[in-house]
């Protein structure tokens, strides 16, 4: 499985070039230069932007420096979402670098959680891991770990130490040999429209009949619009042969062919992109494999559903 381990590394070391600019609303003593930084996709904004804060505080008065927060094109950025998710959701189809605006005043109390220290980030991170394990293993693996093991997971993320992190995280990716995978897949699906921040439901990686379920199966059940514009055409799939069981579709690996296999009409335009870590995985990818290899360090599979670019 050498290839699969490479995927783990590629995911961990993914970076997004960003340009931080101070909001014109902030009062400065001198002009503030923008600050450029490569952001780790798998980390959190408030964990990796100490240098950004120091840079801008140099041109501001000490008393004006309350909690720093970020915004992109008018939308406050939720620091508790992994950076890569924020980028994919809000800016993946725009030119790099990612232009983020920095604020120190008027903290948007109704939109953002406060982040007063790294221990808040750690608590949030560990709480996600615990929830993921509750779904995968009824919490048994995380509860059997010692406090120092939990600390190792956090320190691995905080200090960008892949080996340290995975030495512990691999335990969270195991499952009983007689099962086809985890009990339920920890995932969250995000979209920019609508009030609801994300979709999260119980989803097993294997069907009651023993079939390995795929990303396409997940979408069909929870976000059919990502596959077909007309919901009823997705229902017709029940009568079609399952993907990979001999159905002959020209250009099998093309977007269109994939979506057709999950129920879209043959000439329907693609309305949404289904993005994980900045890529669009094939719909036929088993969801168990995605959970083991493309989850974030918090053990959740974060899926961004964004409007397809109309070029």
């Amino acid at each position, binding site marked *: 499985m050498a290839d699969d381990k490479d995927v783990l590394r590629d995911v961990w070391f993914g970076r997004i070039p960003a340009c931080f600019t101070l909001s014109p609303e902030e009062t400065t003593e001198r002009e503030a230069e923008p600050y450029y930084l490569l952001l780790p996709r798998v980390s959190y904004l408030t964990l990796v932007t100490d240098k950004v804060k120091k840079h801008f505080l140099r041109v501001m008065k000490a008393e004006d420096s309350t909690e720093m927060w970020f915004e992109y094109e008018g939308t406050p950025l939720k620091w508790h979402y992994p950076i890569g998710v924020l980028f994919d959701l809000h800016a993946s189809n725009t030119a790099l670098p990612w232009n983020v605006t920095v604020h120190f005043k008027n903290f948007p109390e109704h939109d953002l*959680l406060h982040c007063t220290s790294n221990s808040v980030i750690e608590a949030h991170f560990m709480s996600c891991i615990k929830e993921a394990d509750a779904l995968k293993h009824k919490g048994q693996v995380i509860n059997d770990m010692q406090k120092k093991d939990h600390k190792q997971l956090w320190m691995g993320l905080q200090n960008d130490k892949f080996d340290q992190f995975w030495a512990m995280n691999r335990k969270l990716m195991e499952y009983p040999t007689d099962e086809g995978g985890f009990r339920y897949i920890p995932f969250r699906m995000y979209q920019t429209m609508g009030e*609801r*921040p994300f979709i999260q439901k119980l989803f097993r990686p294997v069907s009651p009949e023993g079939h390995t379920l795929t990303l396409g199966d997940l979408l069909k059940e929870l976000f059919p619009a990502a596959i077909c514009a007309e919901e009823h055409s997705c229902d017709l799939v029940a009568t079609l042969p399952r993907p990979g069981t001999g159905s002959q579709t020209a250009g099998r690996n093309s977007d269109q062919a994939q979506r057709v296999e999950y129920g879209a009409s043959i000439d329907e335009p693609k309305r949404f992109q289904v993005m994980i870590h900045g890529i669009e995985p094939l719909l036929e990818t088993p969801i168990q494999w995605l959970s083991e290899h493309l989850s974030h360090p918090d053990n959740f599979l974060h899926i961004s559903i964004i409007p397809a670019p109309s070029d």
Partner: protein
Amino acid sequence: MMAAERNTVSCYLDEKTFRLCCQLFLQHSETIQDGWSWEQIKGTDEGFMKKTLLIPVKSSILNKQHECSIQDENMETDDIQANVEDETAGVQAVCEIHAVLRYEYHVLYSFSYQIPVLYFRASTLDGRPLSLEEVWSNVHLNYRQRLQQGPWDTLTQQEHPLLGQPFFMLHPCRTEEFMKPALDLAQAENKRVNYIVTWLSVVGPVVRLDVPLSYSTEVSAPD
């Protein structure tokens, strides 16, 4: 499953039972005008229970920097009685300035943990949200120690999973620890409890939410 294994009742709640328990809970709330309502998420069968309370508190709980706004509020709340529980400071209590806070409670179902979770937010009457420190200081001293020791791990700020806004949440990790004795006892007495009534009666008071006793006697378990 062997008969012996049926001794203990599951501390977990499936979603259907959650909704049924809430329905029965809400019926009683309606009867005694306790102010709970069901909020449905548009276009889905998901929802949560909600209640808003106005709670008088000592203004010393609120941060000094907001004292000015408190003074204004007090002009409108002159008729609120001072807290005279503390007799030794009786005279002081009568003169103490009070503020009124707005607490909004939501009871949601957690699929991940298969238990209910209590979310809430608090603000002053003029809409300023309370900080975690202020909410903490508003937890009765008796509960504060217990809160720090568990069985509910901690009080943290979280994103409301259905509304996307910042709320406070009592962490659900150890609900099992205090539900188990209550459920076992009920089973031993051949009674069936309404999970929501039992659970909320335990966690609610910690964050200033009271559940009148009549819930325990009048609300049945779902069939």
